[in-house]
């Protein structure tokens, strides 16, 4: 017998043990560890997102404002990458090897199985060349999507812009994936869900060389993209364009509203910028440049700039005085160069005296409205100045000041109307009265009103007592209605008869011997009121609110020209030209129009 025969058992044991170890390992990776199944799914399927075209944006007359253009993104799926000829690749796409390294690292950080954007928005020509060579670069593929294009360089702020969804958004809303676009400002933001449509997905089977081998299960699990809904805005593109043309050398804003509906006809924010700057690969650089610009072109003045309303506020004080019974059309106050109280004086310009209410509005007498305001706040009925002021404050708030109007334009600010508490703190409780806050009577002091609130006041007066929340979108394709909040009629605590008195004053301001005479139009009865907002930082701001025609008004607006001095100089002509442009479609006063272009900005 062979002395080593028993060694067969050792050898057999080695064979058996090895097989057992292998079976355990197989059981582990095939049955217990599920991560391999997940990997396999992502390995051979390429989820090609079908990006829907974003909704097109039209003006109120059906003119296209913003539409779409095809763009090509190069995507990368890190797990499928194989070593490739970097030099050729870089030359093909005109990028540096560092860019390749950095972006592959980024993509891997996001996910090695999922695809992410490697290079954004290559041109159609580059796309054609790259597609041919793509087989050399496993792991890369091209994704088609759309980019915004603009018919004209107008309404940049209102439209807003579209950019890539950031990490916070992706975390909050699973709809968005890395590299997806989302509306970041303007109506692109407020109507994002309507405009974006619905992404679809094509599931393709691909091999490791990036070659498409067919569609997964004959496309049973594919979903088609649904295009975004088109928006019809209430903007009048030519009016918007004209406003931006008139104010091209100014800083400020115009907000024009159709009083009967609250639809915004124009929303000019100056200085503005070309909306196309914030689209495409150079977006970040352009955005940074705009941000550095000392003129603050990104600042959306119509809803974010707070100015004192100036003399336009006399209209509201008139309504309050009439309503409270401390003022009537026959009330007369004399003016001796201003309103004298204690040893101080709030100055007025030179004009006949005494004046009745209509004339006081028309020529904007400061002394007159100081008296009105005093009689409201110091009304004996309330027992104290604080109570009188509180009453005044409630009326102002009811008119839509000091709070957001809740329009569909994002980033609206509240504005500011000082409270009783504020003055208690500022002057000490019971240590103030109408005289301490007398500048409110002429719309100066702590008041902060945004242009859209101001335009809304013009619309409310035009309607003789009510308004619809100003909004910029008229119609969403596929929807029967826009948001019901824009159909809701807001009333004010003043009777329409009281408004008629104010309207008469405004009519006289333009058409009588008033401050806004320069804005008079022969064939259109314009009602308006000038204002000058005190500006501690420089020259005063020029303000004009108006509506026209007097009966059945079609347009109400507010014009702000920063550092424009008196309302009559710049704001009135602009308001008047805008009204003419909108109602008649042409301009009868080219000289006045050209004078607007001579404005010199004073920073």
């Amino acid at each position, binding site marked *: 017998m062979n002395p*080593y025969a028993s060694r*067969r058992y050792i*050898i057999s044991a*080695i064979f058996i043990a090895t097989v057992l170890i292998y079976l355990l*390992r197989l059981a582990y990776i*095939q049955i217990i560890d599920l991560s*391999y199944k997940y990997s396999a799914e992502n390995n051979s399927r390429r989820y090609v997102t079908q990006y829907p075209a974003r909704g097109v944006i039209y003006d109120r007359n059906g003119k296209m404002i913003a539409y779409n253009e095809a763009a090509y993104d190069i995507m990368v799926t890190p797990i499928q990458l*194989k070593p490739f000829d970097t030099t050729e690749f870089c030359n093909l796409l005109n990028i540096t090897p560092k860019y390749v390294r950095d972006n592959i690292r980024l993509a891997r950080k996001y996910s090695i199985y999922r695809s992410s954007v490697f290079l954004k928005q290559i041109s159609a020509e580059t796309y054609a060349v790259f597609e041919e060579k793509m087989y050399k670069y496993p792991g890369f593929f091209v994704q088609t999507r759309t980019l915004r294009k603009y018919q004209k360089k107008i309404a940049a702020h209102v439209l807003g812009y579209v950019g890539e969804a950031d990490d916070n958004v992706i975390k909050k809303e699973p709809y968005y994936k890395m590299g997806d676009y989302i509306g970041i400002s303007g109506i692109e933001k407020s109507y994002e869900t309507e405009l974006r449509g619905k992404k679809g997905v094509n599931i393709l089977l691909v091999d490791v060389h990036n070659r498409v081998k067919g569609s997964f299960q004959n496309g049973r699990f594919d979903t088609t993209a649904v295009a975004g809904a088109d928006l019809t805005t209430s903007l009048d593109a030519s009016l918007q364009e004209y406003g931006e043309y008139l104010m091209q050398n100014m800083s400020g804003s115009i907000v024009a509203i159709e009083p009967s509906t609250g639809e915004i006809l124009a929303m000019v924010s100056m200085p503005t910028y070309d909306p196309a700057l914030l689209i495409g690969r150079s977006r970040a650089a352009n955005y940074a440049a705009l941000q550095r610009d000392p003129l603050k072109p990104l600042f959306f003045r119509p809803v974010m700039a707070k100015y004192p309303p100036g003399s336009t506020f006399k209209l509201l004080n008139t309504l309050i005085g009439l309503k409270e019974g401390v003022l009537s059309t026959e009330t007369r106050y004399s003016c001796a160069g201003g309103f004298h109280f204690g040893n101080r004086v709030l100055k007025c310009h030179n004009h006949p005296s005494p004046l009745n209410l209509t004339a006081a509005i028309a020529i904007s007498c400061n002394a007159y409205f100081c008296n009105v305001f005093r009689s409201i706040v110091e009304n004996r009925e309330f027992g104290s100045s604080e109570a009188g002021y509180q009453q005044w404050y409630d009326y102002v708030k009811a008119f839509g000041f000091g709070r957001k109007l809740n329009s569909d334009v994002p980033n609206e600010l509240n504005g500011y109307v000082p409270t009783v508490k504020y003055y208690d703190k500022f002057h000490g409780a019971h240590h103030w009265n109408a005289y301490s806050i007398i500048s409110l009577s002429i719309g100066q002091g702590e008041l902060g009103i945004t242009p859209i609130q101001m335009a809304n006041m013009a619309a409310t007066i035009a309607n003789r007592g009510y308004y619809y929340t100003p909004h910029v979108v008229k119609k969403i394709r596929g929807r029967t209605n826009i948001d019901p909040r824009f159909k809701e009629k807001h009333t004010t605590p003043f009777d329409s008869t009281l408004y008629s008195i104010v309207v008469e004053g405004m009519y006289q301001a333009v058409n009588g011997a008033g401050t806004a005479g320069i804005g008079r139009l022969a064939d259109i009865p314009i009602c308006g009121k000038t204002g000058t907002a005190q500006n501690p930082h420089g020259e005063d701001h020029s303000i004009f609110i108006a509506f026209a025609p007097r009966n059945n008004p079609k347009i109400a607006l507010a014009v702000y020209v920063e550092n424009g001095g008196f309302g009559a100089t710049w704001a009135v002509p602009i308001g008047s030209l805008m009204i003419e442009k909108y109602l008649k479609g042409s301009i009868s006063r080219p000289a006045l129009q050209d004078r607007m272009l001579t404005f010199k900005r004073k920073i």
Partner: protein
Amino acid sequence: MINRKENMASGIDWITVVVYVVLVLIGWINIYAAVYNEEHKNIFDFSQRYGSQMILIAAAFIIATVIILVDLKVFTVSAYLLYGACILLLMLVLVVGQKVNGARSWFRIGSFGLQPAEFAKVATALALAKFMGSENIKFNNSSTFVIIGIIIGLPMLLILLQPDAGSLLVYLSFSIVLFREGLPGAFLLFGFMLGVLFITSLLLSKLLIVSIIVGAGFVAFAFFTGRYRETGLGFLLFSGLSLLLWAISAIGHLGLDYYYIIAASFVVSGIAFLVVSFFRKIRFLASFVLFLLGAILFTFSVDYVFHHALEEHQRTRMNILLGLESDPLGMGYNVNQSMIAIGSGGVLGKGFLQGTQTKYNFVPEQSTDFIFCTVGEEWGFVGTSVVIGLFLFLLLRIVAMAERQRSVFSRVYAYSVASIFFFHVAINVGMTIGLLPVIGIPLPFFSYGGSSLWSFTVLLFILLKLDSSRLELFR
């Protein structure tokens, strides 16, 4: 002699033949699944790999029949001749061979390729069997070692020159045969420890390894010999030297690494121990100290080779294997894809032709070295268990066959067959499931290619022929 034919048929181990045919057919089906595409659905399409594999299989069956029919002497008598021929082919391939994947290991004749290393295994097995069967081999004769060393080492050397790591590794399988024939287990154990030391010296810090070797050395010596006093003195000498070296290093600001200090002290004290063992005639101490010194030297040389002699990609490959580096895009990509394919199969698999990983070329070399992935993906754990089970059955069957041989020649040859199969299956499957490094080596009967299928067929059927005529051969 009258019923020679009948005898022959009855003498053949039909169970093994059935297992062989089953494995070959399963392999063919999986090659079909691996390279299947819509345009060429026909399994007999000769333009595809499964079509040509069918021809190769048919040829293999003919080869098998021929082997059964020819005279046994062809293999027994001319074993050295065959061996010599293969050695010549291995030399020739270095000169006129075609370079594939950096290795010059293929003869290319038209569209037909031949890998001499595959057949050299058969010849080496025959030659080894012939030598060990020719006289009563005892493993205490140095000339025996030398001759065995030459028989196995010569083809290894030639394959190393190609170089083809997979085939090279398979030659180590002959150590199992030698073990069965009486090679002291200590050799295998020593080899095994060398392997462990090799891997640990890459994984652990040198300081730790050297400390463990020295510490374990002292403890083991004290424990096994009971010479506590001597051990204590020795340890005192060693620690004194270490302290001295450390002080010199610290004062002289030499900044010597601790493992150098420990290694140096151990070398110096080790010399002292050798002197002691010589004078006091403690032979065991000498070999023990030499063994420990060898271990330390080995650690340092592995470290040196790894960091200075190996190529970058070899280092990376090693690192991935040892889990020191994970890089799904780099060298580990193949293994990763292979494991994804197998792992995604689950218990029952995705079904015949339903695999996506292997079908869409995610797995490299899917019809050759990574054919096991297709089994794993489409047939699941059930499929992999059955295939591995069949191989284990075959191995144990061959061992049983080996043990019933009357000649040393047949037994040595049978164990060679078992060992070669074992290495191939273990290395190939181990590679696909991430237990072993990626070494290009075919899975017997499964992998696409004539050379491997035919050489495994020849290997197995010579054994079956030997087995069928075991009663005719007497030693």
